[in-house]
Protein backbone atom coordinates (compact mmCIF):
# COMPACT_ATOMS: atom_id res chain seq x y z
CA UNK A 1 0.00 0.00 0.00
CA UNK A 2 1.15 3.54 -0.65
CA UNK A 3 2.42 5.53 2.25
CA UNK A 4 1.56 8.90 0.84
CA UNK A 5 5.00 9.64 -0.52
CA UNK A 6 5.13 11.85 -3.52
CA UNK A 7 6.62 9.81 -6.30
CA UNK A 8 8.23 10.46 -9.69
CA UNK A 9 5.79 12.35 -11.91
CA UNK A 10 4.03 13.97 -9.00
CA UNK A 11 7.10 15.80 -7.82
CA UNK A 12 6.82 18.05 -10.82
CA UNK A 13 3.16 18.41 -11.49
CA UNK A 14 0.74 17.25 -8.86
CA UNK A 15 -0.04 15.54 -5.57
CA UNK A 16 0.00 11.92 -4.46
CA UNK A 17 -3.16 10.05 -5.36
CA UNK A 18 -2.77 7.51 -2.56
CA UNK A 19 -3.04 9.73 0.51
CA UNK A 20 -5.79 11.69 2.22
CA UNK A 21 -9.18 11.21 0.55
CA UNK A 22 -7.36 8.99 -1.95
CA UNK A 23 -6.88 6.40 0.78
CA UNK A 24 -10.64 6.30 1.38
CA UNK A 25 -11.10 5.81 -2.35
CA UNK A 26 -8.64 2.89 -2.25
CA UNK A 27 -10.71 1.33 0.55
CA UNK A 28 -13.96 1.62 -1.43
CA UNK A 29 -12.31 0.17 -4.51
CA UNK A 30 -10.81 -2.67 -2.48
CA UNK A 31 -14.26 -3.62 -1.17
CA UNK A 32 -15.65 -3.65 -4.70
CA UNK A 33 -12.65 -5.56 -6.02
CA UNK A 34 -13.12 -8.24 -3.36
CA UNK A 35 -16.88 -8.61 -3.67
CA UNK A 36 -16.97 -8.44 -7.48
CA UNK A 37 -14.16 -11.02 -7.79
CA UNK A 38 -15.81 -13.40 -5.35
CA UNK A 39 -19.17 -13.07 -7.04
CA UNK A 40 -17.82 -13.45 -10.58
CA UNK A 41 -15.63 -16.40 -9.59
CA UNK A 42 -18.60 -18.14 -7.99
CA UNK A 43 -20.92 -17.47 -10.95
CA UNK A 44 -18.41 -18.68 -13.52
CA UNK A 45 -17.46 -21.76 -11.50
CA UNK A 46 -21.04 -22.88 -10.86
CA UNK A 47 -23.37 -21.64 -13.59
CA UNK A 48 -21.53 -20.07 -16.50
CA UNK A 49 -23.98 -21.64 -18.98
CA UNK A 50 -27.02 -19.83 -17.50
CA UNK A 51 -25.98 -16.34 -18.53
CA UNK A 52 -22.49 -16.39 -20.05
CA UNK A 53 -22.47 -12.76 -21.18
CA UNK A 54 -23.60 -11.46 -17.78
CA UNK A 55 -21.07 -13.55 -15.88
CA UNK A 56 -18.16 -12.73 -18.17
CA UNK A 57 -19.09 -9.08 -17.79
CA UNK A 58 -19.06 -9.55 -14.01
CA UNK A 59 -15.55 -10.98 -14.35
CA UNK A 60 -14.45 -8.04 -16.49
CA UNK A 61 -15.85 -5.61 -13.93
CA UNK A 62 -14.01 -7.48 -11.19
CA UNK A 63 -10.70 -7.26 -13.05
CA UNK A 64 -11.18 -3.54 -13.57
CA UNK A 65 -11.94 -2.94 -9.88
CA UNK A 66 -8.82 -4.89 -8.92
CA UNK A 67 -6.65 -2.94 -11.39
CA UNK A 68 -8.12 0.38 -10.25
CA UNK A 69 -7.37 -0.52 -6.63
CA UNK A 70 -3.78 -1.41 -7.51
CA UNK A 71 -3.33 1.74 -9.59
CA UNK A 72 -4.69 4.02 -6.88
CA UNK A 73 -2.66 2.33 -4.15
CA UNK A 74 0.53 2.31 -6.19
CA UNK A 75 0.38 5.95 -7.15
CA UNK A 76 3.05 7.59 -9.21
CA UNK A 77 2.86 8.10 -12.94
CA UNK A 78 2.07 4.49 -13.80
CA UNK A 79 -0.48 4.07 -11.01
CA UNK A 80 -2.23 7.23 -12.08
CA UNK A 81 -2.41 6.09 -15.68
CA UNK A 82 -3.80 2.69 -14.69
CA UNK A 83 -6.40 4.37 -12.47
CA UNK A 84 -7.48 6.84 -15.16
CA UNK A 85 -7.97 4.06 -17.71
CA UNK A 86 -9.86 1.86 -15.23
CA UNK A 87 -12.16 4.63 -14.02
CA UNK A 88 -12.94 5.60 -17.61
CA UNK A 89 -13.69 2.02 -18.64
CA UNK A 90 -15.85 1.66 -15.53
CA UNK A 91 -17.85 4.78 -16.30
CA UNK A 92 -18.39 3.77 -19.93
CA UNK A 93 -19.24 0.23 -18.77
CA UNK A 94 -21.79 1.22 -16.16
CA UNK A 95 -23.48 3.69 -18.53
CA UNK A 96 -23.56 1.22 -21.42
CA UNK A 97 -24.63 -1.84 -19.45
CA UNK A 98 -27.07 0.24 -17.41
CA UNK A 99 -28.75 1.52 -20.55
CA UNK A 100 -28.78 -1.87 -22.28
CA UNK A 101 -30.22 -3.55 -19.18
CA UNK A 102 -33.15 -1.14 -19.26
CA UNK A 103 -33.77 -1.11 -23.02
CA UNK A 104 -33.09 -4.80 -23.68
CA UNK A 105 -33.24 -6.74 -20.39
CA UNK A 106 -33.06 -10.08 -22.23
CA UNK A 107 -29.40 -9.47 -23.11
CA UNK A 108 -28.46 -10.03 -19.45
CA UNK A 109 -30.71 -12.73 -17.95
CA UNK A 110 -28.93 -12.35 -14.60
CA UNK A 111 -27.83 -9.10 -13.00
CA UNK A 112 -24.29 -7.80 -13.19
CA UNK A 113 -22.65 -5.18 -11.00
CA UNK A 114 -23.45 -2.61 -13.67
CA UNK A 115 -27.07 -3.57 -14.46
CA UNK A 116 -29.52 -0.69 -14.01
CA UNK A 117 -26.58 1.63 -13.36
CA UNK A 118 -25.49 -0.40 -10.34
CA UNK A 119 -28.85 -0.21 -8.56
CA UNK A 120 -28.23 -3.51 -6.77
CA UNK A 121 -25.18 -1.91 -5.15
CA UNK A 122 -26.79 1.37 -4.15
CA UNK A 123 -25.61 3.05 -7.36
CA UNK A 124 -22.09 3.07 -5.97
CA UNK A 125 -20.76 1.57 -9.26
CA UNK A 126 -22.09 4.67 -11.04
CA UNK A 127 -20.78 7.23 -8.56
CA UNK A 128 -17.42 5.59 -7.88
CA UNK A 129 -15.75 6.14 -11.29
CA UNK A 130 -16.92 9.75 -11.27
CA UNK A 131 -15.39 10.28 -7.83
CA UNK A 132 -12.26 8.50 -9.00
CA UNK A 133 -11.85 10.63 -12.11
CA UNK A 134 -12.57 13.79 -10.11
CA UNK A 135 -9.91 12.83 -7.55
CA UNK A 136 -7.37 12.00 -10.27
CA UNK A 137 -8.08 15.32 -11.97
CA UNK A 138 -7.78 17.30 -8.71
CA UNK A 139 -4.48 15.72 -7.79
CA UNK A 140 -3.05 16.18 -11.28
CA UNK A 141 -2.65 19.88 -10.61
CA UNK A 142 -0.31 21.46 -8.06
CA UNK A 143 -1.81 21.84 -4.59
CA UNK A 144 -3.29 25.23 -3.90
CA UNK A 145 -2.49 25.44 -0.19
Amino acid sequence: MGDGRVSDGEVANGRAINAGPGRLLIAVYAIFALSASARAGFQIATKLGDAPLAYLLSALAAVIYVLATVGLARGGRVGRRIAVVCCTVELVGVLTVGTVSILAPSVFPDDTVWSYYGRGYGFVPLVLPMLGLFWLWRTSRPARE
Partner: protein
Amino acid sequence: MAFYDPPVTDGLANGITIGSLVLAAWSLLTTALNRPVGRSHLVGLGLIELALAVQVVVGVVKMAGGERPEEMATFIGYLIASLLVLPVGAALAIIERSRWGSAIVALASLVIPVVIVRMRQVWGG
Protein backbone atom coordinates in the same frame (compact mmCIF):
# COMPACT_ATOMS: atom_id res chain seq x y z
CA MET B 1 -33.00 -24.14 9.47
CA ALA B 2 -32.58 -20.43 9.74
CA PHE B 3 -29.66 -18.65 11.29
CA TYR B 4 -32.30 -17.12 13.57
CA ASP B 5 -33.27 -20.34 15.35
CA PRO B 6 -31.19 -20.10 18.51
CA PRO B 7 -31.82 -16.66 19.95
CA VAL B 8 -28.17 -16.24 20.88
CA THR B 9 -27.09 -16.05 17.25
CA ASP B 10 -29.81 -13.65 16.27
CA GLY B 11 -28.94 -11.48 19.24
CA LEU B 12 -25.29 -11.61 18.28
CA ALA B 13 -26.01 -10.57 14.70
CA ASN B 14 -28.21 -7.71 15.89
CA GLY B 15 -25.60 -6.66 18.41
CA ILE B 16 -22.90 -6.61 15.73
CA THR B 17 -25.16 -4.56 13.46
CA ILE B 18 -25.97 -2.00 16.14
CA GLY B 19 -22.36 -1.80 17.30
CA SER B 20 -21.16 -1.28 13.72
CA LEU B 21 -23.68 1.49 13.12
CA VAL B 22 -22.69 3.23 16.36
CA LEU B 23 -19.01 3.05 15.41
CA ALA B 24 -19.83 4.32 11.91
CA ALA B 25 -21.73 7.28 13.34
CA TRP B 26 -18.90 8.07 15.75
CA SER B 27 -16.35 7.82 12.94
CA LEU B 28 -18.36 10.12 10.69
CA LEU B 29 -18.51 12.60 13.57
CA THR B 30 -14.74 12.49 14.08
CA THR B 31 -14.31 12.86 10.31
CA ALA B 32 -16.46 15.98 10.43
CA LEU B 33 -14.45 17.24 13.42
CA ASN B 34 -11.26 16.74 11.41
CA ARG B 35 -9.85 14.15 13.83
CA PRO B 36 -7.75 11.13 12.87
CA VAL B 37 -8.30 7.63 14.21
CA GLY B 38 -7.81 7.36 17.97
CA ARG B 39 -8.11 4.79 20.70
CA SER B 40 -11.93 4.95 20.70
CA HIS B 41 -12.06 3.77 17.09
CA LEU B 42 -9.60 0.96 17.69
CA VAL B 43 -11.44 -0.29 20.78
CA GLY B 44 -14.73 -0.26 18.83
CA LEU B 45 -13.16 -2.11 15.91
CA GLY B 46 -11.64 -4.66 18.28
CA LEU B 47 -14.94 -5.38 20.04
CA ILE B 48 -16.84 -5.81 16.78
CA GLU B 49 -14.10 -8.01 15.34
CA LEU B 50 -14.29 -10.17 18.45
CA ALA B 51 -18.07 -10.53 18.06
CA LEU B 52 -17.59 -11.39 14.39
CA ALA B 53 -15.09 -14.09 15.36
CA VAL B 54 -17.65 -15.55 17.77
CA GLN B 55 -20.19 -15.52 14.96
CA VAL B 56 -17.80 -17.43 12.70
CA VAL B 57 -17.31 -20.03 15.42
CA VAL B 58 -21.08 -20.37 15.87
CA GLY B 59 -21.54 -20.69 12.10
CA VAL B 60 -18.82 -23.33 11.78
CA VAL B 61 -20.17 -25.29 14.75
CA LYS B 62 -23.65 -25.28 13.24
CA MET B 63 -22.40 -26.46 9.89
CA ALA B 64 -20.29 -29.14 11.58
CA GLY B 65 -23.46 -30.17 13.42
CA GLY B 66 -25.21 -30.87 10.12
CA GLU B 67 -27.05 -27.60 9.48
CA ARG B 68 -26.57 -26.39 5.94
CA PRO B 69 -26.94 -22.86 4.65
CA GLU B 70 -28.98 -22.62 1.46
CA GLU B 71 -25.95 -21.32 -0.43
CA MET B 72 -23.07 -22.92 1.42
CA ALA B 73 -20.13 -21.64 -0.65
CA THR B 74 -21.39 -18.08 -0.57
CA PHE B 75 -22.04 -18.28 3.16
CA ILE B 76 -18.49 -19.48 3.84
CA GLY B 77 -17.21 -16.66 1.61
CA TYR B 78 -19.10 -14.13 3.72
CA LEU B 79 -17.82 -15.72 6.94
CA ILE B 80 -14.24 -15.25 5.75
CA ALA B 81 -14.89 -11.75 4.39
CA SER B 82 -16.56 -10.70 7.65
CA LEU B 83 -13.26 -11.22 9.46
CA LEU B 84 -11.13 -9.38 6.87
CA VAL B 85 -12.98 -6.09 6.50
CA LEU B 86 -12.22 -4.45 9.84
CA PRO B 87 -8.50 -5.37 10.18
CA VAL B 88 -7.77 -4.17 6.64
CA GLY B 89 -9.79 -1.02 7.26
CA ALA B 90 -7.99 -0.45 10.57
CA ALA B 91 -4.57 -0.84 8.94
CA LEU B 92 -5.41 1.69 6.23
CA ALA B 93 -6.96 4.03 8.79
CA ILE B 94 -3.87 3.95 11.02
CA ILE B 95 -1.56 4.72 8.09
CA GLU B 96 -3.74 7.66 7.08
CA ARG B 97 -3.16 10.09 9.92
CA SER B 98 -5.89 12.53 9.01
CA ARG B 99 -9.67 12.80 9.10
CA TRP B 100 -9.71 10.42 6.15
CA GLY B 101 -8.54 7.65 8.48
CA SER B 102 -11.75 8.18 10.46
CA ALA B 103 -13.69 8.07 7.20
CA ILE B 104 -12.13 4.70 6.37
CA VAL B 105 -13.27 3.32 9.74
CA ALA B 106 -16.78 4.62 8.99
CA LEU B 107 -16.74 2.88 5.62
CA ALA B 108 -15.48 -0.43 7.04
CA SER B 109 -18.11 -0.26 9.82
CA LEU B 110 -20.89 0.30 7.30
CA VAL B 111 -19.83 -2.75 5.30
CA ILE B 112 -20.43 -5.06 8.29
CA PRO B 113 -24.25 -4.65 8.51
CA VAL B 114 -24.43 -5.34 4.76
CA VAL B 115 -22.40 -8.52 5.23
CA ILE B 116 -24.69 -9.56 8.11
CA VAL B 117 -27.81 -9.04 6.00
CA ARG B 118 -26.30 -11.04 3.13
CA MET B 119 -25.25 -13.83 5.51
CA ARG B 120 -28.83 -14.11 6.76
CA GLN B 121 -30.13 -14.19 3.20
CA VAL B 122 -27.79 -16.92 1.97
CA TRP B 123 -28.36 -18.97 5.10
CA GLY B 124 -32.15 -18.86 4.96
CA GLY B 125 -32.67 -18.32 1.24
